[in-house]
């Protein structure tokens, strides 16, 4: 496996030998990974290989058992609670099932980060929410409640909420899981558009959808058994002979990746 071509000193996120277990279940086993600024990085791997746990480490929602996570030059393990809170303001996160607040309307959900952290008038908040909902094509749903939305719409609202405060790092946790192929393509296109509209932003997409990964990624890491087993540009993943990658990309049952 070749080393990452990105400079860790100027990276958005660096994982340096990260280990994490939950009870007897070892999830991350020496993860080394560099997420560059201004690019879309996709982390692929089978379910249960620690992709979502990796994202939660990046935000400091989970602490590693060993190793370091460095975000925008700051070692998360050395930060106090309020410093970590301030750093989190520079993130946006799109959760697997959107994680919208059930008791709040679409407008209130999307306005939430602004109301918490920026002193804006109601008119300014409304115009920012309308602009970002227009970007995800959901202007008509502004007064709806999350329970009235389909899965794809919820994810788009989740994306609107994540980008409303123009974060430096945008994390997507399996953004297309559970969607039909057309909605999947729509969300993938939205991810690519969002990256184009925010050129300085680092995006990290955790996924096991290879078609989407090839569409949005500038760089891909493949995780297996809690560490990086392959990395490179999408073209590399299309052409490599690495049997691990080939089995995953082609979705074959036979190969070095065991199927329980």
């Amino acid at each position, binding site marked *: 496996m070749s080393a990452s071509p990105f400079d860790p000193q100027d990276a958005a996120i660096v994982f340096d030998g990260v280990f994490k277990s939950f009870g007897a279940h070892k999830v991350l086993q020496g993860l080394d990974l560099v997420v560059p600024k201004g690019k879309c990085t996709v982390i692929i791997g089978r379910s249960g290989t620690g992709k979502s746990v990796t994202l*939660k480490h990046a*935000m400091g*929602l989970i602490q590693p058992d060993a190793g370091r996570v460095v975000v925008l030059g700051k070692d998360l393990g050395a930060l106090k609670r309020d410093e970590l*809170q*301030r750093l*989190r*303001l520079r*993130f946006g*996160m799109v*959760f*697997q*099932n959107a*994680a*919208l*607040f*059930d008791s709040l309307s679409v407008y209130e959900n999307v306005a*939430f*980060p602004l109301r*918490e*952290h920026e002193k804006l008038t109601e008119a300014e908040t409304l115009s920012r929410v309308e602009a970002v909902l227009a970007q995800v094509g959901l202007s008509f749903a502004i007064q709806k409640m999350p329970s009235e939305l389909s899965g794809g719409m919820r994810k788009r609202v989740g994306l609107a909420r994540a980008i409303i405060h123009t974060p430096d790092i945008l994390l997507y946790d399996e953004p297309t899981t559970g969607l039909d192929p057309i909605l999947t393509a729509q969300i993938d296109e939205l991810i690519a558009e969002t990256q184009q509209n925010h050129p300085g932003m680092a995006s990290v997409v955790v996924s096991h959808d290879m078609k989407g990964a090839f569409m949005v990624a500038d760089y891909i890491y493949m995780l297996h058994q809690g560490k990086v087993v392959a990395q490179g540009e999408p073209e590399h993943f299309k052409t490599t002979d690495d049997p691990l990658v080939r089995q995953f990309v082609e979705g074959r049952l036979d190969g070095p990746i065991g199927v329980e």
Partner: protein
Amino acid sequence: MIKRLIEGVGAAVIRVVERFGSFAEIAARGTWTLFTPPYRPRLILQQLEFVGVQSLSIVLISGFFTGGVFALQAAYGFGLFGAETLTGSTVTLSLSRSLGPVFCSLMVTGRAGSAMAAEIGTMKVTEQIDALEAMAVDPVEYLVSPRVLAGALMVPVLSALYTGIGMFGAYMVSVPYMGIDGGAFLDRIAWYADPEDLHWGLVKASVYGWLLAAVGCWKGLSVRGGAQGVGQATTEAVVVSSVAILVLDYFFTDVLMKLGLLT
């Protein structure tokens, strides 16, 4: 064999200490953050309405019948030696000192404490708690603080209403139904019951209200797994709060009496 026994006991002790520690941390931080910005009047009003106004009917109905059944039993007992007129004062003292705060808190635990555990637990399993943290909002400050404040403020109010409606229930059963003299019934209440009785009852109710909300939030935030975990947390919130309120009430009353604050 002995080694395994010691290990088992040790593990159980560690588990209890860990759980108490996590409860103490959430309860203390949930209370402390009430005094630090950001202040959240809208969320506090919502919780005051949820804990207070929405518990009103259940508290009034149960209070009326608690007073009624208590009067029924007391009047029968006192009637054995011709002292039925003491029914009112006995019911009043019991309700205002202990039964009002305790029973009222148990009713609110069943209605609001369980709902807090279920709501926060559901937020946990659907990653809404993670979403709060991801948006740099402290879930304890956002979710726990308004709830513990609402518990501490509204349960005493409900408890006072519970005691009042309980006295009314006792009057209705004793006077019109059982034929006890109304003037003597009220006169004995004025003779034996002091404002101090109600005062300490309200202090207790405030503590129990804080406690039941803190336990509900703690159980909700501790949920693991899916729907089953939420169900388990809800049940545990009710069981832990109820037992804690009953045990605490005994020691609270004992200490107040020993200090001469209640006679």
